[in-house]
C-alpha cells in the first residue's frame, strides 16, 4: 500500500513534480506514460529518495513520512521498502549475477551468506538465468543484465518495484525477454510502478495507466479507457503521436 500526497520536486527554478497525488494498492500494476521531461522518472526517483523531494507526504507500507522532515533512518527505510530497476541496469560490475542479487540481502538485511545465496539461486531460476550465476555483468547481454537488475529488485521483497524505462536502453532483440519477465511478475501480483514507452505492455498488463505532463498527473484510468477514450486533449494528442509510430 502506497500513498503519495502532494509530492513536489524542483530543480533550481524548474518545478519537475508539481503536486503529485497517487495511491497504489497492494498487487496493483501501474504504468506511467507521458512525454519526455515530464517528471516520470523523477517521480520514481523521489519515492526511492535518489532525489530529495521538496514537499509532500509518503506512505510506503508501514512507513509514513513527511518528505521535508525525512531523517536518514526514514530515507533508508523508504529505500528498503522500494526496489528500483534502472534504465541502464546499473549492475555492480565487481559482482557476479548471483552476488548482485544476494548483495542487498547480505549487506542490508544482514542475512548469512549461504542463505542469501540460496535465495539468489531461486531468483536466478525464476528469471531464467540459473546457468549465469557466476557470470560477471560485462559478459552478459543487455537483456540478461536487465533481468539480473530485476532479480536484484525482486530479492529486496519491497512493497513496490519501481521500473524506470527498463527497456529503453535495450537493443530491440532483448526487449521481449525483459517485458516477458515483467509480465510474469505482474501475474504473480507483484506491486509495480512502471515508467515506459512500451504502449503494448501498458495496454496488456497495467491495471491503471497514468498520463503525466508538465509535472502533473493529467489523467488516469484503466488501459481500455485511457487508450480508447482519453478524456483530456493532451492525452489524446500524446497518444496520437506515440501510437502513430507503433503498430496498433
Amino acid at each position, binding site marked *: 500500500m502506497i500513498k503519495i500526497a502532494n509530492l513536489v520536486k524542483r530543480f533550481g527554478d524548474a518545478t519537475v513534480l508539481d503536486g503529485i497525488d497517487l495511491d497504489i494498492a497492494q498487487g496493483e500494476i501501474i504504468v506511467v506514460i507521458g512525454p519526455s521531461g515530464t517528471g516520470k522518472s523523477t517521480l520514481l526517483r523521489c519515492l*526511492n*529518495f*535518489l532525489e530529495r523531494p521538496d514537499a509532500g507526504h509518503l506512505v510506503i507500507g508501514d512507513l509514513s513520512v513527511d518528505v521535508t522532515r525525512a531523517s536518514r533512518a526514514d530515507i*533508508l527505510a523508504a*529505500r*528498503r521498502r*522500494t*526496489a*528500483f530497476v*534502472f534504465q*541502464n541496469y*546499473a*549492475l*555492480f*560490475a*565487481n*559482482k*557476479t549475477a548471483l552476488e548482485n542479487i544476494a*548483495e*542487498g540481502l547480505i*549487506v*542490508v538485511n544482514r542475512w548469512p551468506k549461504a542463505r542469501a545465496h540460496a535465495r539468489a539461486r531461486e531468483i536466478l531460476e525464476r528469471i531464467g538465468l540459473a546457468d549465469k550465476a557466476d557470470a*560477471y555483468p*560485462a*559478459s552478459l547481454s543487455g537483456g540478461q543484465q536487465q533481468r539480473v537488475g530485476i532479480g*536484484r529488485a525482486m530479492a*529486496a521483497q519491497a512493497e513496490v518495484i519501481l521500473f524506470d524505462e527498463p527497456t529503453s536502453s535495450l537493443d530491440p532483440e532483448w526487449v521481449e525477454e525483459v517485458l516477458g519477465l515483467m509480465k510474469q511478475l505482474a501475474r504473480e501480483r507483484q506491486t509495480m510502478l512502471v515508467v515506459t514507452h512500451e504502449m503494448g505492455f501498458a495496454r496488456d498488463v497495467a491495471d491503471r495507466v497514468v498520463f503525466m505532463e508538465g509535472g502533473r498527473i493529467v489523467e488516469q484510468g484503466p488501459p481500455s479507457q485511457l487508450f480508447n477514450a482519453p478524456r483530456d486533449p493532451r492525452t489524446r494528442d500524446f497518444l496520437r503521436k506515440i501510437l502513430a509510430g507503433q503498430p496498433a
Partner: protein
Amino acid sequence: MRVLDFDYMLGLVPVLLRYLPLTLQMAAAGMALALILSCGLAVIRVLKIPGLNAATLLFISFFRGTPLLVQLFLFYYGLPQLLAFLTQINGITATIMGLTLHFSAYMAESIRAAIVGVDRSQTEAALSIGMTNGQLMRRIVLPQATRVAVPTLMNYFIDMIKATSLAFTLGVTELMGATQKEAAGSFLYFEAFITVAILYWIIVELLAWFQRWLELRLNRAYRR
C-alpha cells in the same frame, strides 16, 4: 680502455645486498604511510570538505611542485633549525617522511580519479537497495576504484624504491650509499655503479611481474 673487473662486481653483490633490507624498509614504510595519507586526502577532495579541501590542494600543489631532493634537504637540514625537537631526526626518518609527503601528493590525485571514475549509476543502485554510504564505499566503490588505482600506485611504489637512493645525500648508508663507499674505496666506479644499477633494475622488474599478475587478478570480473 680497460676490461671490466667481473670478479670485483660479483664480490660486491653480497656486500651491497646487506643494505637492500634498509632500502626496501624505507620504501615499504613510505608507501604504507603514503597510502594512508593519500586515501585521506583523496576522500577530502572527493567530498570537497570545506576548508580541508583548500588545504589539501595547497599541500598537493607544494609537494608536486618542488623536487623531492629539495624537500628532503628541507626536512633534514632546514626544519631542525626552526623546530628544536627535530634536531634528533635521523636520515632514515627524514627520508621516510619526505617520501611519504611527496608521493602521497601524487597518489591522492590518482586515488581520487579512481573513486570518481566508478560508474555513478552503481552508486545509485547501491543506495536504492538501502545501503549506507559506508557500505556503498566498502562493497561497491572502493573495490572497483582499487582495480583502477593499483597500476598507477604500483608505478609510484617502483618510483619510490628508486627514490630511496636519495637518502644517501642525508648520510644514510642504504643501497646507494653503500655503493658510493665501496666505489670510493676501490676506485672501480663504473663496476660499482653498474652493479647497483642492475640490482635496482632486477628489483623493479620483479615488482613489474607482480604488478602484471595483480592486474590480471583484479580484472577477472571485466573480461567479456
